[in-house]
Each structure stands twice: as C-alpha cells, then as structure tokens.
C-alpha cells in the first residue's frame, strides 16, 4: 500500500483516482497551494479550504482512497497584500479540522522578505496547533532557498523532526540528511526528480526520514510517480519491506505527529456508498451506481 504524501487532487480527474487506487495508493495528502493563477480575495481561499476538507475528501473516498490535507498560505501568494493577512486570520479554524494533518505548503518561492514573514508566522501557527509542517522549497536558486528555509525553521524553535523539507534533489539531501528533519522528493515525468534518480539517492542515503511524492497538480505531472518509483526500486533489488518503509511507513510516521492519523483506519479502503451525495452532489453524473 502507498501513502501519496503530496498531490493536488483538486486539479485532477476521476481517472487519476481510479488509476491511483489500482496501483495501491490507499491514502493521499493534499497540501493547500495556489491555483495556477492568482486569487484576488480571501473568499477564494475559504472556498478552496472548504473544498479540500469537504468535496475532495468525498471524491477520493468514492475510489476507496483516504484523503487528508495540510492548510496554509502558499509562499507565492504570501507576497500578495490583497489577501495574505486575511488568510492568516482564517487559518486557525482550518488547522483544527479533522483531516488536516499539518501546516503547508509554506516556505519560500521567490525568497522575498514577505515570504519569510508569513513562513515564520505559519510555523508559529503550527506550533500553537501542535501540527508538523510541510515546506515548499524554491525551484530557482534552490540550494540557497533550502538553507534559508532551514535557518527560519531553526530560529522558530520548531522541532526538526516535525519539519518536512520538500522538493529536494541530489544536492539538497547533502544538506538535510543530518538535520533531523524529513527530506521530501517530488518525482516528475520530465523535471525535478525521476524514479531512477530517486533510487540512486536512497541507495546512497538510505530510507530513514525520506519521503517521495508525485506533487501532481494542474501541470504536466503524473499521479503514479510513487508506484513507478517503487517499481524502479524493485528493479534495483529493494525488497517490498523497504519499498513500504519509503512509501507507507515514512509518510504515516511523519504526519501521525499531528495526532490525527489513525493507522488502523488506513488498513481498510475508505468506505463509500455511491448512492450517497455530498451537498447534493455525487461523482455519478447520472450513471448507475451499480454499473461500475
């Protein structure tokens, strides 16, 4: 079984859920992020947050997949004064929702002072709500951005074992491996990491506190990159137990620090009844619930 710890299902279609379930993905986590274009007011965030604790959770469950999320103001929109303070005001209530297992994606993108300000404020929010944090690291000037994210975490006083530094690569693992934090790697079809490069990393650095994800979103991305990484690991001689440690035990152990992740619940697929609706809506589009 696989726990996909970073995927933006809000922007994916039901075929993806179906394929994910077929390839052993039992649970997924959706970090709050941006939408591809800028939001212009806090109401857009409220509706999005409601969706990822509501409709998206229901949608995932219709394929037997448990859906969780992290809440946060993403670094890109932290720069937008039309909404950054307003989003900070609404976050506390969303940090207490049952399916919220952390604060994220927070972090740095363009590495501006405003991004740093809101990153720090959200680490403090996570500490107040006793949640771990998922950090988006910059895709440009990555090494410097990683180092700055680490400095901000250290200054905040958050325990490093409650920090997941995501979007890492061969260069950043050298920095993060000994910090006591968790190192995340996003496996993309053409950019960031590939399954084969990821295998080389785990061969060299081991599996401890390592997490892989697809980070699939509205762009060219692939929600099956974690199962593909498992296949690549097996080709290189990793055992099923080792694959499970990387793609099941590790993400569960990290997010279980929220105190809201019941491992026994994950042992069974999410329960669903395709006749039931969510706020009057279903995924059936008029189809017979017993026909597929």
């Amino acid at each position, binding site marked *: 079984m696989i726990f996909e710890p970073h995927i933006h299902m809000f922007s994916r279609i039901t075929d993806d859920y179906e394929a994910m379930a077929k390839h052993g993905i039992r649970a997924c986590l959706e970090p709050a992020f941006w939408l591809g274009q800028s939001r212009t007011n806090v109401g857009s965030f*409220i509706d999005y947050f409601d969706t990822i604790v509501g409709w998206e959770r229901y949608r995932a469950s219709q394929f037997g997949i448990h859906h969780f999320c992290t809440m946060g103001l993403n670094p890109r929109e932290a720069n937008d004064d039309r909404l950054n303070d307003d989003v900070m005001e609404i976050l506390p209530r969303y940090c207490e929702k*049952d399916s919220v297992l952390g604060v994220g994606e927070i972090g740095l993108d363009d590495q501006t002072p405003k991004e740093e300000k809101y990153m720090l404020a959200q680490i403090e929010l996570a500490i107040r709500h006793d949640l771990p944090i998922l950090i988006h690291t910059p895709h440009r000037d990555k090494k410097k951005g990683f180092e700055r994210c680490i400095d901000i975490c250290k200054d905040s006083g958050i325990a490093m074992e409650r920090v997941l530094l995501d979007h890492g690569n061969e260069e950043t693992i050298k920095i993060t491996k000994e910090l006591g934090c968790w190192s995340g790697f996003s496996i993309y079809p053409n950019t960031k990491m590939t399954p084969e490069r990821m295998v080389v990393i785990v061969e060299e650095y081991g599996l401890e506190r390592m997490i892989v994800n697809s980070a699939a979103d509205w762009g060219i991305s692939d929600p099956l990159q974690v199962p593909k990484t498992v296949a690549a690991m097996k080709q290189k001689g990793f055992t099923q137990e080792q694959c499970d440690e990387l793609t099941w035990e590790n993400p569960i152990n990290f997010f279980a620090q929220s105190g809201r992740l019941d491992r026994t619940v994950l042992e069974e697929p999410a329960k669903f009844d395709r006749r039931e609706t969510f*706020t009057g809506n279903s995924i059936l589009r008029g189809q017979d619930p017993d026909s597929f």
Partner: protein
Amino acid sequence: MVIPSDILTQALQPAAREWLDSLDASQDIAVLLPQLPRRTGRDPFGGTRHTSDDHDVDFAPWRSCDVAAAHLFEKLNPTGEQLRDLFAHGDFEERAMVMRTRAVFPADDTTCHLILEAQRTNTQDHMEALILDSDLVARAVDAGLPIDDFNRLILKTAFVDLPFGRMFGSERHASAELSTMVQDLATEREAAGRKVWYDTNRVIGLAPAPGTIARLLGGLEHGDDNHRLAAVEGIVSTGDTELRKYLEARLPREPKPSIRDAIESALQATT
C-alpha cells in the same frame, strides 16, 4: 431543554467534561468545534429518548461529540449568524454536530434556515441529524417555518427514503396538499418501476386528499408487507369507520402475523 445532566455524565469522560468546562466565550467557537470529535469521542454513547413539555429527543443516535457540542453551544451561546457560519464552513463532522444539536434548543430562524439547507444540500447524514429523532421539525413549523417549506421537506424525506415516524410530532402538520404531493411522487415512482416510500400510506392517511382512500385500499392488497402495514395504519389515521369493512375483508387473507395483529388492533380501535 438543556442537555440533561445524566446525559452529560453518560456521554462525556471526566477529562472531556473538564476541558469543556474550562472553555469560555473569549475562545473562537469555530476553532473549538472541529476539536470535539477528537477530544470527546465520535461513537454513540447509548442514549435514550427524553420527553419533556417542550422537547422530545431520542439520544440513541447521538455521539459523545454531539453532546459536547450541545454543551458548548449552551455555554458559549453562538448567534444565529455564527451557527450558520459553522455549518457553511464546517467539515462533515462539524456539520453533523451543528444539525443534531438543534434538537435541544428552541426552534428559531436559524433552525428554519438549516432545515432549508439540509433539504437543498441533500446530504443524507446531515438531513438525518437535523430532522430525525426529535420533534424539531414540528416545532419549527410552530415557530414559523412556512407550511410550503415543510411540505417540500417531507417530499424530500420521501425522495431519500427517511422514516416519517422518526420526525416526532410532524403528523400534526399533515395536510391534504402534502398528501397530494406524496401521492403524486408515489404514482410517478410506480410508473417508473421504482421503489415507493414505505411511509406514503401513513402520511396520506393523516389528511386524505382526492385519491387517498383508493390508494389506501389498494395498499391493503399490496404485495410488499411494508406497504400493507402502512396502509392499515393509514386507514386507522383517516378515522373513517366506513373503511372498517375493508379491513375485515382483508383479515382472513392476510398471511403476515404482524400485519394481522395490526388489522385486529385497528378493528378494535374503530369498534
């Protein structure tokens, strides 16, 4: 009605109760509400039905977190606007708590709003939490819920197949107009070969409309036990002693013992 003290004791562990008692109005109820299932439990606690002069509530489906939520609402006294916000932006559990706890508070504008929301959003768990196992809907009509909205709610109840008998006291708001709506839905379902709401005959017997008596008498011969039993009850509800002869005619041919018992009781009641 406030939450009875024996219910509080039965539903909440001492630590949960202590935490609840430590809360005050300076805290944001929107931050507190989602914590309740985790902090107080999300399983039914074995509650029973409580009836008083102004409320009739069956606590059987209530979970510990529902009792905690009712206690929290009693303590922090949120405004109607806050309650609407808690429902609108609550997760699945929060919405269920907001809905279920309305039963122990007076019916007001917010109750009416939530009834319409339950009907519009059509999430079965939330509809059940709000409208079943108490007399809340009946009290809402008394408090000003328009009868048209009540009729549409019952029609939706029929549509999603919820039991009318668990909407305590709602029979007093039955009307011929409602009977016509429920009968029409049944006819439509029959034409389509779809399942008909088992409570159809019970509801229409309360306030007969044109066609009701024929449907009830047909119900006595229905092949489905549930429809036959409801037809017997519907006939009793009409109070029409002229229908007694049809019950007498059915009795010797009725194969189901429980329905025979119902017919015999009905005949005794109309003697």
